[in-house]
């Protein structure tokens, strides 16, 4: 019996040492996971996830303080990508944070703008150009559709405009389900 115990103990020690050595010697310095999570998020900076921007949300996910299904602009694709990255199960989008809607941008109705700069201060990506008492306008290409500029506007002159599909951005649809193929 003692030989058995001794043999197993010796094996355990040897393999433990080997594994410990391998863990240190072959350790791979990877990207911090926060950067990887942030790379998946859509960078709308809208705050619907309850965090002030995508980076804080990424940090919260990494710390385990937030779930992966709190990002409406990201939608299913983002949830799936986060699930793959972190090895967790994908969850349906948490509707408390909003719905996944089509892509939108905002437009300022120039006739009504009073040049108060409140929207400029609110925009997280500096997509509004203007100055005090000067005309404000939205750079459409840079607008992420976060809608944070709409509440501060005192004259309600910012409207949401859906981004229409054009020939350059049209996508072939996923083929309809094959007969009997409900997977």
């Amino acid at each position, binding site marked *: 019996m003692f030989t058995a115990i001794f043999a197993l103990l010796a094996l355990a020690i040897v393999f433990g040492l080997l594994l410990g050595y391998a863990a240190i010697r072959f350790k791979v310095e990877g990207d911090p996971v926060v950067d990887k999570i*942030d790379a998946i*998020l*859509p*960078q*709308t*900076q809208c705050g619907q996830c309850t965090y002030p*921007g*995508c*980076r804080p949300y990424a940090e919260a996910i990494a710390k385990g303080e937030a779930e992966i299904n709190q990002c409406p602009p990201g939608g299913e*694709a983002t949830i799936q990508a986060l699930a793959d990255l972190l090895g967790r199960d994908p969850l349906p989008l948490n509707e408390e944070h909003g719905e996944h809607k089509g892509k939108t941008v905002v437009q300022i109705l120039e006739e009504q703008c009073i040049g108060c700069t409140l929207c400029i201060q609110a*925009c*997280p*990506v*500096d*997509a509004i150009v203007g100055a005090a008492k000067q005309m404000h306008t939205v750079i459409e290409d*840079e607008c*992420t559709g976060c809608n944070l500029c709409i509440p501060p506007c005192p004259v309600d002159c910012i409207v949401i405009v859906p981004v229409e*599909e*054009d*020939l350059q*951005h*049209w*996508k*072939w*649809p*996923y*083929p309809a389900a*094959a*007969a*009997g*193929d409900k997977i």
Partner: protein
Amino acid sequence: MRHPLSKFFGGLHLDDHKSESMQQVPRVLPLAKQLIFPLNQHIGLPADPVVSIGDKVLKGQMIARPGGSISAAIHASSSGEVIAIEERPVSHPSGISATCIVIATDDEDTAIDASVLTDYENCEPAMLRDSIRDAGIVGLGGAGFPTFIKLKPTPGKVIETLILNGAECEPYITCDAMLMQTRAEDVLRGADILCQAMQARQCLVGIEDNKPAAIAALQAALQSHQFHHPIEIVSVPTIYPTGGERQLIKVLTGHEISAQRRPLDVGLVCQNVGTAVAVADAVLKGQPLIERLVTVTGSAIKNPGNWVVRLGTPIQHLLAQHAVEANNDIIIGGPMMGFTIDNTQAAIVKTTNCVLIQPPQITKPAIPCIRCAECASVCPAQLLPQQLYWHARAKDFDKIQDYNLFDCIECGCCAHVCPSHIPLVQYYRFAKTEIWDREQEKQKADRARERHEFNLYRQQRKQQEDEERRRKKKELLNRAQGKTVSETDSKKAAIEGALARAKARKDAMTSAPKNIDHLAPEQQRQIDEAEARRHKQKQDKV
């Protein structure tokens, strides 16, 4: 015709349905009342209009200039007045409209004065290329790549051979065959000009062997005219898709050019025979690209044939020449690679080679893939369509690229043979556009992240600057009131000193030890007197 030929893997032998539309020479289509010119009829950026609503234009006049370095010009194909620059339906599988210049034709058909270069063999190649660019010529074989860009050799490299693509491998389409039959000399003349423009050494014209009349016509033209570069007419076996650029190159030269490289890298350039004719017209007659041959055919049409059509003609106008019933399927292009449209108000553009009318087809429902690998046995790109299908279905866009999704030329051979009737090509197209879209989204997101980070930095910087400014302002204020900083400080110090002394006195009073041992005689006398007074008060109360 004893040029050594190679074979490419896969491919199909299809019923070619060509004789139906080759019974007569091409007819000239009467002018339509309105001509509609989409600004994007080519690969690259859309053209920029150079006319405004109300302008009168002449036939051959440039109405839109190239919108970038990879773009092409657009010319009016008849004289008239610009009545609109607005969104109109265009021939595209999505059915989405796009910006078009709309011209109402007067019936005069007056042409603009044109400059010709009859002496082309002594022209500088750059001059010829510019002439081709100014004529708005793009690849007429279907893709629409601006031709002049393809003619510029990579610095340090020489273009050996021009390959003229007269294969026309898709069933039903015969416009190139008729072009070669009726304008053989122009085809060869165009080839000659192209060789001069590229400084190519020779030209090979590849034609599938199901077009004997076209081959004969070209041979005859070769014999009876003088050309400045050696041109060889080569008959190749009829297999779909021999007309694919890389497949034809393999057959004629044996070179296998992967999707990541260009034929230019091995000194080859491939052009369609229609493009060659357009080049000849542009250089020798000064006529920009304003018309092309279009085949109208299909089992649901009577009297199929080819038409010489002015660009911008609504498809409806073309179909009106044949009695076409509603409810038929209208396919632009061929049955293997074309697309369906619903709205025949869309116009014929530079890349429209065929309008195919077929009786309505009931799509057979797809059943699960049985892994028979028939698809792989016919794929000319030597891919594994089955694997591409599985990964596209699973929306696994990383794995699908491992199987070379972007090498797929969307020829349709795989879906043609699939016994389960799976719409394979649609899966691949879906995957490709999805991947491109995600790329663009990612770039946009990266830009947004940068801007956000700068925004945060900017706000922080502003905060710091504001604090600094406030501090400086305060200092200025103090100075203005005559007090220096040190004075203010010493006054503060005096006040503080006084406060401290007061506090010390208070503490001294209250911080005396409460211990009744070791009392000072004075303290003891005070205590005794106080105690006596208390007793007296008590007794008095009682």
